[in-house]
């Protein structure tokens, strides 16, 4: 009987696009990250919860959170650790800046290979900043492992395989996959549990080397308690080919940005006549507003 799994959870720090203000976009049409609060990508939290449930069932499971992003994305790693992840790795490097989904999935796949020896990679279906849902599947392809997308619940897991219920547009599908496997989790999956009081107290000072330096923190503490060090990797640490990363490795570019203002154009005037009422009722049934 297997006692634990080795899980890597991919987490992204994203601008909180649910609370967009007027400065959300820059002139060139890319996102103005400085104007939006940075949060844990919501569906990545769903993915973390699924990983934690496996750990609840198999306590020897280890969960490593991997995040690629700016140095401040260490916040996401801390948050995951407060909620139950064992440790985290921040992949950050100027060379990775400007990566599109292709270059990002390449960098992430390289980092996953560097971690090595894993059973499951879990991530959110998509990030709320790009909404592409491409990075997970692309990483799986690069790792040459099977992938299960739109996962809503892990129905069963044992040493041989994992059974997952997928939430699709018109129903559900239950599939079975061997290990290692990459799973992307949708927002309809169980919400992530809160932070744990003991873990918050234990890990509240966890920082990356860069942060320790910037905060001028007591180095002795980080020597005495090595678990407080959040590992940081750069492009070279995960053997990234410069041609395949950053802007150079990203075939995507923004051609044009249009400001779309949604207005209600199709208003219809109805009277109280039987014909109009009939038409209206038929309309709302057709549009699934009723029934």
């Amino acid at each position: 009987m297997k006692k634990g799994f080795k899980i890597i959870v991919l987490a992204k720090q994203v601008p909180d696009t649910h609370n967009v203000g007027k400065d959300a976009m820059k002139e060139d049409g890319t996102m103005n990250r400085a104007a939006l609060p940075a949060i844990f990508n919501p569906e990545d939290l769903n993915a973390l919860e699924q990983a934690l449930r496996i750990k609840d069932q198999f306590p020897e499971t280890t969960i490593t959170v991997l995040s690629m992003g700016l140095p401040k994305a260490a916040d996401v790693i801390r948050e995951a650790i407060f909620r139950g992840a064992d440790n985290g790795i921040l992949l950050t490097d100027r060379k990775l800046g400007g990566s599109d989904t292709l270059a990002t999935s390449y960098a992430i796949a390289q980092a996953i290979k560097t971690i090595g020896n894993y059973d499951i990679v879990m991530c959110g279906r998509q990030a709320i900043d790009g909404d592409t849902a491409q990075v997970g599947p692309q990483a799986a392809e690069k790792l040459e492992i099977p992938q299960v997308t739109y996962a809503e619940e892990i129905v069963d897991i044992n040493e041989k395989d994992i059974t997952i219920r997928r939430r699709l547009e018109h129903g559900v599908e239950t599939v079975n996959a061997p290990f290692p496997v990459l799973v992307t989790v949708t927002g309809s999956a169980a919400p992530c549990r809160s932070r744990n009081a003991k873990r918050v107290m234990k890990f509240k000072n966890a920082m990356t080397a860069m942060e320790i330096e910037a905060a001028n923190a007591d180095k002795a503490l980080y020597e005495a308690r090595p678990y407080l060090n959040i590992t940081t990797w750069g492009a070279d640490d995960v053997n990234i080919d410069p041609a395949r990363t950053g802007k150079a490795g990203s075939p995507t570019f923004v051609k044009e940005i249009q400001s779309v203002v949604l207005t209600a154009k199709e208003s219809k005037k109805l009277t109280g006549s039987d014909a109009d009422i009939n038409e209206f009722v038929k309309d709302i049934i057709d549009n699934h507003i009723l029934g």
Partner: protein
Amino acid sequence: MANFYNDNEDLKFHLNHPLMKRIIELRERNYSDYEKYDYAPKNYEDAIDSYEKVMELAGEICADVIAPNAEQNDLQGHSIENDHLKYNPYAAEDYEALRKASCWGMTMERKYGGLNFGNVPYIMVGEMVSRGDGGFANFWGLQDCAETLAEFASDELKDEYLPKACNGATLSMVLTEPDAGSDLQSVQLKARQDENGQWYLNGVKRFITNGDADIQLVLARSEEGTTDGRGLSLFVYDKDKNCEVVRRVENKLGIHGSPTCEMVYKDAPARLVGDRKMGLIKYVMSLMYGARLGVGGQSVGIAEAAYREAYKYAQEREQFKKPIIKFPAVYQLLGNMNAKVKGMRSLLYETARFVDMSKILQEIQKERTLTPEERKELKYYKKMADAYTPLLKLFSSEWCNQITYDSLQIHGGSGFMKDFPIERMVRDARITTIYEGTSQLQVVASIKAVTTGVFAEKMAEYDAVLADATNLADQKAKLLAMTEEYKKAVELATAPKDQDYLDFQARALVEMAGNIIISYLLLTDSLRDAKFLPVANNFLKLAYADNKQRFEYVANGKPEDLEGYRL
């Protein structure tokens, strides 16, 4: 994401009270756990930072999980399945969220897996849980029972049960019986011991909150032939034994979120907690004091929620072409409600600090000899904890009811409908003046502090704290006059040396004392944060008039009056 800690600055204010440094220092035994446990604090700053971070995560759970579940938890209640309790999924979700966050066994020592938190942060979480769902609050608050095990049980029992409690095992205090409510001396449930020394419980218990909990503390008559409190012992019963039946889940006015059970024990094997015959007179009394502090937190939490509902509604509801909050009759109500919520909260955390100081010093006394200063401290804080706990229970629960009543009033007809949460809060509030000792019993427990001068002593201390506050000259003068008036009333009520007459006037006296103490507390708070000054002024106006009325009632009474009341 909402957060009941971050959206209420008063909590942080009370968490950072100056006495906290001393409390935490003692509790942490000069931070000796730091090297042993990776989540133990290094110093005061580290500890208070940890407290705040834990309050923040609890505040998030209360706002994002517990509060949204409150309506369904109330509507669905709980049921019986195969003789045992079945929780509704909403309460179960609340429970799981708090359990996974390690907010169970919060006050237990780290060696048992607890957080080693004092009462101040523990009660603060209780306040937030109650603001989210006053009904579910009991479910969570019963972790108090672990405190009784920690204090009085043998090491063997502690090693077995406290780690479970810290891991989320639910607890219940199984005291009340059909014929033993306020009068617990009449408990009849029988405990008998077989030739091997094993105890068995037989009998019925009634009105037991979360009765079918994992770990049940049962008060039982262990001494055959006795009829009073001295024949009662406390037992711990493990649900795993499966010798108990939930015969009924009560259909109540409020707090549907926590099940109230009738329990039947049939030859249920149980283990003795502490010494025989000490069940009621020592252990249950201690349990009860903890529970009263808990009800204080629950009352403040429900009141806070009700006040916020009223405030929001008064801003949104327009009549006569303007929001109703613009009318003096409405903002006067709201202002008074706000003053009372803040006043009862100050009393709550003052009491929690006294209880902490008294309890920690008693624990330390078991480990080593106290220094003469510490002995003095212990004596002082024990006296204050004993005096303030019933005072808090009385005031907070009564005001919790007043505030939910006033909040519903502000909602007008809508408040009477089931569409707004205030109707639930009114129902949930109602029990607070009844359980863990009725208001009438809190008066009985408080009157000693009136007649022996403990409250008066504390009033003088508060006055001294305000000595340099020249901006408060008017308020201080008023409070000194109120104190004199109070002392005069005490004199008048005690002069006839008639116990029945004193009991008759007791409530007025205790309430006069409480009004003065709460006024002082709010004024003292204003020294640390000026925003409390207008609140204190509003409260003082109420208190001043209220005490005048009570004084007149006492001054115009005489022992012969009692005859006219005996119907």
